[in-house]
């Protein structure tokens, strides 16, 4: 089967420095891929290149007409902006509405359905800053659904989110998989990545390893991705030590 997303030889640079170097991989429809790597390894850069926000120096991304929904890091959003949950999800419809058009009944129906899908229907009229971290993530997933995205990119959705909220998001992703939605998600949590994802991409500017978690993670690949900071714990996979910023948000220092 042809891959739904195909990345070939992708190199992206910021100010002359390579943030990503010669990255190639394929993702099949409905697969769930965890992107794992230390801070500054290019996870956000990869996502931005996938949606076309950054232009690659070499290589290309092929997503054959698939709509890509991008759930950015929570730190990248102005949560005080005067918009309600409903307004945010409606933004996903803009591409479908077209210029000089107002929202129609159809759009409102889709927005309600997408909110219901992530269990946020009763929060529709709340201002987005009033939500918890996990609820905010769910709203942005709903927006990607309203956009009719078949590929969902999620940048660090679990940073600063408690365990029950994380589980709620994972359950939503399980249901989306049944609908054929492909998910790429960056995370610092190597164990979660290994247990709940079909494939794991170990990134450190280059793609160190890519494949089913049991194949992608081994002492050599971990050492290559994390340097001396990773500790191999045999069959139970691994843990990362000394990755000092592991629980912070990458966008942190900007704000």
């Amino acid at each position: 089967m042809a891959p739904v997303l195909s990345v070939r030889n992708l190199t992206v640079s910021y100010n002359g420095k390579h943030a990503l170097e010669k990255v190639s991989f394929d993702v099949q429809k409905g697969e769930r891929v965890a992107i794992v790597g230390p801070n500054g390894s290019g996870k956000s850069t990869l996502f931005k290149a996938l949606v076309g926000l950054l232009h690659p120096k070499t290589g290309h991304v092929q997503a054959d007409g698939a709509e890509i929904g991008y759930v950015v890091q929570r730190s990248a959003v102005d949560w005080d902006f005067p918009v309600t949950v409903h307004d945010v999800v409606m933004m996903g419809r803009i591409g479908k509405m077209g210029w000089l058009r107002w929202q129609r009944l159809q759009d409102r129906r889709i927005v309600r359905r997408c909110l219901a899908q992530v269990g946020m229907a009763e929060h529709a009229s709340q201002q987005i800053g009033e939500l918890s971290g996990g609820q905010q993530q769910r709203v942005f997933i709903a927006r990607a659904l309203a956009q009719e995205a078949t590929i969902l990119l999620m940048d660090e959705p679990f940073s600063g989110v408690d365990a029950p909220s994380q589980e709620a998001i994972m359950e939503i992703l399980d249901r989306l998989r049944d609908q054929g939605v492909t998910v790429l998600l960056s995370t610092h949590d190597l164990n979660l990545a290994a247990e709940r994802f079909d494939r794991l991409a170990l990134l450190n500017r280059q793609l160190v390893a890519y494949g089913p978690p049991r194949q992608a993670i081994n002492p050599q690949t971990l050492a290559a991705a994390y340097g001396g900071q990773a500790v191999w714990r045999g069959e139970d996979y691994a843990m990362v030590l000394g990755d000092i910023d592991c629980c912070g948000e990458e966008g942190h220092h900007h704000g």
Partner: protein
Amino acid sequence: MADVLELLTEPLRYPFMIRGLLASLMVGTLCSVVGTYVVLRGMAFFGDALAHAILPGVAVAYLLDANLFWGALGMGLLTALGIGYVSRRGQVKEDTAIGVVFAASFALGVALLSTVQSYSVDLAHILFGNVLGVSDADLWLTAGLGVTVLLAVVLFYKELLVISFDPVLAATLRLPLNALHYLLLVLIALTIVVSLQTVGVALMVAMLVTPAATAYLLTRRLWHMMIVGATVGAVSSAAGLYLSFYINVASGSAVVLVCTAFFALAMLFAPRRGLVWGWLRRG
């Protein structure tokens, strides 16, 4: 009751007051709606700079004895696009680019005007507005351009909302980010030019920012913010004009001070975002 009515109608016996009031109401509404984006996108400095940078255009038109409006319009559009371009090139930070362009332009305007005999009076009118000197032609121009700008705000509502709230989404939806950004700059420039005679250069930023900021504290949706802001702007404009009539202070200052009073009230008593609300919740 009859006294209150008389207080309100008394100034309207003068045609210049009626024209001034109409101009103020239109400008107050327009500035507050467009100001919503100025507040949300942190463009207060840009707005202030743009108002000042218009001066050489006004001066040239004045020296040539042409309509000041067209000089202001030309210069306003030129500066808005110029600042947009320089800040996009990214060689210096945006506020630095604005600082350089705006001070240079303002200096040039003052230099040009200073060649004229009646320099100080004219400069004062441009700096602080002259709402009572509004002519019928000015009113029509204000109305025409004001309606055009408001129409653009309505027609491109969802696009301007998404580039302001989430440029990343706008890019993934393949919206023309640059074109929309420039559209917004042009709308702000038009608003400033239209408001020049009523508000003046120096107090322009207050009309762009203060009513919208007041509305920001009171609302939780963009179009609510626009409507509340427009109301605050219009009411302040009218109230300010009456104040200036009865206690004989400069009209522009009176309008801005009334606006600021509304803002202070909102800052104290706004539900959720107000200070008193915060104390009550903590206490």
